[in-house]
């Protein structure tokens, strides 16, 4: 087993290819493009959660200095791709329903109702304060617990018989009912927000009546291009979306949000480029969130610790106008070898904005519940929680009855346990103290489905032997360009410094958005394939240059040269190949996608986390003091950046477990946590040393590079591991996140 750790980075990892521009402040994010005649927009948002607008008094704002327009449903331009109709009568799939400035209906507090466009930001901010909106209020429902009776099977699941969100059961329910040891528990996670450090921002530029360029913070330039082209009835190539640098997103940039449309509409209306930057408070109602979710887990096992059944029911929050679905209950079907397993998934529509995917969507939520419940059952069985998991290890996928494409979760458990020192753990809760603090340790498993989408990449060998590789993929932070450079350098046998990877522009070859941990599996494969194709061309062209290539040897490439065989001492430089053939450039474009293997194997990334916490017995304050995280994601492309992604996932999990809570004042249906002073995310002082380990064995069935996604499993399970550690430290089981001191004293 290739067990590498990067705690002391000494391998040959690449440092980030965009490191220099990021540390010097010269990387250009969406709000930072220099555009002549730029106007500034500020949103006015609703102050009621349900009802309709009765009047908008904008005269004073319009008369304020510098104001170009006050835009609302009263005067907004028509969006040609929106067929004329009322806002939807029933909940629609995400992305189709809400239309900004379309009609007077209000669906949630914080909904954009008007937008002021002015010459400067200061002018726009002031004028926005002068807009007076009056409403006809209706009674809103935002309280999850008070409305649970209204939860139901999502309409879109009712219509789709093959939906994975249909109720599921395998085996005999009696196995669970009659199990020797059973636990039943309810787990709650509150609404939590992505809150990337960069607020969402867009600069919309109509270069001509039928030509649009947007610099927009999003996670998929191609999908944004398609959606904007459709909305404005333009050919795709007439719309270009640029997002070269993105200041974090974690899911908040997967959709084209109403504010994006608003800026594009405004730019058309005022006939000037328009910049809109959301305020931090607007980030709570504009770009989705991890939905409030209540889950009930019933687990049963024999006295010897054999799982008899798993029943996982989950209800998530959605908006009144769209149905957001996520994988909340699905992991319970696949992770453990349980003859009986059943899941039920429901949605509860409330008068709130629509949730969206947030790092580890569904699984981070579901695995908090499942991994807490597994810990509860292990405790009831008086078994070590790790031993209990190993005893119920699924050697093949119990849901689909397929072999895993690869699974080294057992090695993850062993490696993590060894590095953490798990075997020395006292099983009894509240049995260890250190310096007056209660000390506890907990662990949890992690899993996330494998996603690979068709992707294209182009490779351009330049006359000087350098290479440009392009794909319309994204980098919201993991280091996409660095990983792709690494792949290209390896295949082509050239120094990474001679490679430039270009991304984040819709004019580049098709690629999926950055979500679902799909970038390395999808785009990494395309880059691998296109570089292989370029290599073949170079080898062929070199073969025409020298007799040595006719001896029947297997040509190889290294150090930017082609050799007729491994033994050949004299290589031909790439630059000389192009020169000889009088080529200014050598271009190859290739596509890579999944094949029949998707039906032959079950594909997942796996991992586990071991956490140590200290709890102050007087104040109930929890401190995470040590974390060991271990992942099985096939081949690791670049250790240095992968390790950072794993650390980032753990930090996100610390926030999810201990502090993140978007609290709403239900009298108004409004978040009271609307800034970083009230919505707490982990800071430096909250984060201990985090050890990261990888199994690093290629999964030969998933794609040509043997690599699976890492971003999601880095966070999935972390909250469960922390909750389990808190139980071990205190003897108190907290089933409602976040685990704040009030729940422990």
């Amino acid at each position, binding site marked *: 087993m290739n067990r590498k750790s990067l705690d002391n980075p000494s391998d040959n990892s690449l*440092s*980030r290819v965009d490191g220099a521009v*990021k540390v010097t402040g010269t990387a250009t994010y969406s709000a930072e493009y220099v555009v002549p005649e730029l106007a500034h927009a500020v949103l006015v948002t609703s102050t009621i959660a349900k009802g309709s607008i009765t009047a908008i008094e904008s005269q004073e704002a319009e008369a304020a200095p510098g104001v170009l327009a006050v835009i609302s449903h009263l005067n907004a331009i028509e969006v040609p791709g929106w067929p004329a109709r009322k806002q939807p009568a029933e909940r629609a799939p995400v992305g189709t329903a809400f239309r900004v400035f379309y009609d007077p209906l209000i669906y949630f507090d914080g909904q954009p109702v008007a937008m002021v466009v002015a010459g400067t930001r200061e*002018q726009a901010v002031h004028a926005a304060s002068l807009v007076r909106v009056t409403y006809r209020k209706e009674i809103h429902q935002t309280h999850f617990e008070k409305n649970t009776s209204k939860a139901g099977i999502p309409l879109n699941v009712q219509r789709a018989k093959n939906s994975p969100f249909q109720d599921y059961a395998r085996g005999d329910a009696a196995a669970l009912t009659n199990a020797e040891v059973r636990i039943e528990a309810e787990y709650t996670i509150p609404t939590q927000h992505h*809150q990337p450090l*960069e607020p969402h921002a867009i600069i919309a530029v109509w270069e001509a009546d039928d030509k649009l360029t947007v610099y927009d913070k999003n996670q998929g330039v191609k999908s944004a291009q398609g959606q904007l082209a459709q909305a404005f009835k333009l050919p795709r190539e007439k719309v270009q979306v640029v997002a070269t640098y993105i200041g*974090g997103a974690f899911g908040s940039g997967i959709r084209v949000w109403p504010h994006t449309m608003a800026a594009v509409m405004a730019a058309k209306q005022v006939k000037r480029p328009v910049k809109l930057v959301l305020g931090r408070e607007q980030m709570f109602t504009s770009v989705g969130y991890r939905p409030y979710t209540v889950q009930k887990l019933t687990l049963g096992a024999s006295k010897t610790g054999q799982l008899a059944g798993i029943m996982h029911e989950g209800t998530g929050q959605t908006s009144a106008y769209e149905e957001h679905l996520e994988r909340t209950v699905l992991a319970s079907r696949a992770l453990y070898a349980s003859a009986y397993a059943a899941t039920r998934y429901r949605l509860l529509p409330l008068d709130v904005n629509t949730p969206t995917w947030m790092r580890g969507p569904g699984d981070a939520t579901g695995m908090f519940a499942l991994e807490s419940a597994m810990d509860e059952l292990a405790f009831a069985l008086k078994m070590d929680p790790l031993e209990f998991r190993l005893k119920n290890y699924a050697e093949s996928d119990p849901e689909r009855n397929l072999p895993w494409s690869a699974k080294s979760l057992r090695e993850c458990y062993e490696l993590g346990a060894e590095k953490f020192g798990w075997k020395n753990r006292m099983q009894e809760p509240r049995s260890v103290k250190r310096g007056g603090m209660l000390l506890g340790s907990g662990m949890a498993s992690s899993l996330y489905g494998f996603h690979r989408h068709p992707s294209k990449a182009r490779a351009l060998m330049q006359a000087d032997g350098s290479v440009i590789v392009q794909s319309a993929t994204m980098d919201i932070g993991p280091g996409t360009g660095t990983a792709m450079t690494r792949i290209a350098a390896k295949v082509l046998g050239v120094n990474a410094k001679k490679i430039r990877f270009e991304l984040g522009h819709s004019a580049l070859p098709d690629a999926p958005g950055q979500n679902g941990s799909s970038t390395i599996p999808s785009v990494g494969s395309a880059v691998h394939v296109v570089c292989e194709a370029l290599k073949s061309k170079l080898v062929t062209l070199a073969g025409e240059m020298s007799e040595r290539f006719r001896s029947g040897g297997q040509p190889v490439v290294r150090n930017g040269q082609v050799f007729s065989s491994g033994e050949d001492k004299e290589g031909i430089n790439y630059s000389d190949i192009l020169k000889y053939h009088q080529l200014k450039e050598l271009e190859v474009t290739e596509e890579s996608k999944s094949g029949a293997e998707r039906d032959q194997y079950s594909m997942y990334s796996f991992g586990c986390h071991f956490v140590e916490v200290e709890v102050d017995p007087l104040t109930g304050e929890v401190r995470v003091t040590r974390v060991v995280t271990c992942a099985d994601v096939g081949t690791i492309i670049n250790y240095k950046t992968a390790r950072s992604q794993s650390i980032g996932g753990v930090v996100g999990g610390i926030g999810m477990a201990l502090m993140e809570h978007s609290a709403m004042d239900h009298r108004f249906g409004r978040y009271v946590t609307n800034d970083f002073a009230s919505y707490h995310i982990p800071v430096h002082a909250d*984060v201990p*040393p985090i050890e990261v380990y990888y199994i690093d064995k290629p999964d030969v069935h998933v794609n040509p590079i043997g690599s699976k996604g890492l971003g999601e499993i880095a966070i999935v399970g972390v909250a469960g591991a922390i909750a389990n550690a808190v139980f071990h430290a205190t003897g108190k089981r907290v089933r409602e996140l976040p685990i704040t001191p009030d729940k422990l004293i």
Partner: protein
Amino acid sequence: MEPDRDAIPPDAENEDRRFFLKQSMFIAGLSMAPADFLQAALAPDDGPVGNAVKVKLSLTVNGKRKRITIDPRMTLLDLLRENLGLTGTKKGCDFGQCGACTVHVDGRRTLSCLTFAVMQHGAKITTIEGLSDGEKLHPLQEAFIKHDGFQCGYCTPGQIMSGVACIREGCAGSAGEVREYMSGNLCRCGAYPNIVDAILEVKKEGLKV
């Protein structure tokens, strides 16, 4: 600390200061003035921006003298980003809660979003763009790359500006001290342990920061 204003030629400085003081008193007076006086008093040159008058300002940014006329409602952060093209200083929250906008004003770390630009008359501002010596990166910038002290890069300029101050102010003695001191700089990607490693290494090497 007294601002070091040596970089500003004495004459220009006095001229700017006189203008600034005159104008400050003028604005203060306006708040009590009747509306029609307000209209009449505005000279065309200093015409209305929003419902305020423009203000002349002189300051030094990354060693370069800037003399500009601005909307007094403008924050130092917006001045840097929107008017001076220095977008390395980031707007994360605009409420002084995230640290992304940290710059050095007369050598002190300052949240530029909580500072009106007009308050910085005569001040010397250093932003992330002014930290490196031409092409040569500052040791902490180098260390951030080496230790991968960032992912998306958006909080990075603020982290580095605070990190430099952390070392200069003698607060980088241990990992615990750095973590405490740096806790005003949020990072949602969670690069914290790598940032701490970078700061500790630069401190340990004793390089001039």
